[in-house]
């Protein structure tokens, strides 16, 4: 899509909202300041994975740099499916939550999965998705499970959320 077409459709959106302002989620709004969704489509989905079974796990141990290893888990399956809808490859990166969130903030990753919960302390560092599943802890309180994407990349965020809300997840 050329820049001119994007600008024109953006102007159309603004005009539309003045008239209707309802039911416009089909419109191409919002865009990504850093074009994450475009880059994922043309390149690959870069996923940070911190181990937290059953959501994420490294069955063969976390890979050190240079080594290859495939993760598994509920969130890994979700993201594999999401990448397929975009025709994109996936690059899995291992690390601690702290490290991965720093990389996410700097744009070296597109999404971080670590069995995060909606109460996560990272909501000021990253964009937290809507919850795609809910479980209950030992005390019976609801735990809502989320992923973290790069803050401000709202087109990508909306694409991921749209995909997640369509899935039936039963951990």
């Amino acid at each position: 899509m050329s820049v001119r077409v994007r600008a024109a459709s953006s102007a159309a959106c603004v005009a539309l909202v003045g008239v209707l302002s309802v039911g416009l989620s089909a419109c191409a709004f919002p865009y990504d300041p850093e074009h994450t969704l475009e880059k994922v489509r043309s390149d690959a989905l870069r996923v940070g994975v911190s181990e937290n079974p059953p959501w994420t796990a490294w069955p063969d141990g976390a890979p050190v740099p240079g080594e290859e290893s495939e993760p598994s888990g509920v969130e890994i399956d979700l993201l594999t499916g999401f990448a397929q809808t975009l025709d994109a490859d996936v690059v899995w990166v291992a690390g601690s939550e702290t490290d991965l969130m720093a990389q996410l903030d700097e744009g070296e990753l597109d999404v971080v999965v670590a069995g995060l919960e909606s109460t996560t302390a990272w909501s000021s560092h990253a964009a937290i998705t809507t919850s795609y599943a809910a479980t209950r802890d030992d005390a019976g309180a609801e735990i809502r499970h989320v992923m973290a994407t790069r803050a401000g990349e709202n087109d990508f965020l909306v694409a991921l959320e749209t995909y997640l809300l369509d899935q039936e997840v039963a951990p």
Partner: protein
Amino acid sequence: MTRRFGDTELPEDIERMLRRAMRLEWLSIAFLVTAVTTVYLVMGSSQAMQAAWAEDLLSFIPPIAFLVAVRVTRIRPSRRHPYGHHRSVGIGHLASALALLTMGAFLVWDSTTGLLSQDHPPVGLVVVLGHEIWAGWLMVAAMIYTGIPPVLLGRAKMPLARALHDRVLYADADMNKADWMTALGSIVGVLGIGAGVWWADSAAALFISASILRDGVRNLRVASGALMDERAQTYDGQDPHPLQHRIEAVVCEHLWVDRAAVRVRDQGHVFHVEVFVVPARGAEVGVPALAAVREAVTRLDWKVQDVVVTAVEELLDALVEKEHGSAQEHDPSR
């Protein structure tokens, strides 16, 4: 029930306006409750929306200050409060101005740091009645809802503020009238997020905060002027109040008056007037002569509530400003 301001019984048309102003302020409060709730529900992590929400919260202060002041000013003067309770209007005004100033300064700082630390606000999907919709559209809808009624309310309040000489009401009307700018600013910020311009949101928040800060500074100047016993100004604090010259003219019509000057204290709704008269040579200064001047001045306008007339040898320098010709010479040909 006839409404009063202290000892002053209000003329019927002024009383009708006061009732209308009170109804409008109650309406404003009711609207603000819905606006604050709506914006709170949709604001998410947009700084511009948060600033607009803070402004809506602050907008509660002037209507409440007005309604409280109208009640308080009705209390009759007593030994402890020999001048009545009119000044409560000014105190409410000063408090609102300080609130605007503080909140404005905080929000300017907050949105500037947001801009400098390059916060990229995330705005994702929400599910409304089973439909997935980008949260930004909800924010825009909320700002359209909260942007229009204040302008209408402000336009309705403005003439009442002028007639009632009420600065709190004026400040409120003025803020209301400017409210569409806040709404538009937030909409631009949110659409900016949607268009991938990350700084649009912080910039819109900065614009809104600056307007809150400016309101605070302007109101602080007017409110503290009134409380500092500045010469009575018009309701917007821009010009000297015309009543002062009319009083001086009326006083000079009396035959025993050679020269005269007045000091007017703006008590809130009403004025307290001190008249200094230099008697004509040989004229008799007695209780009846002083009383006649007092009554003539009191009859001039309902706003003139408390008049003290004294005879002096010379007028104070501070009261006589030649270039304005306000301390009028008595015309001996009359």
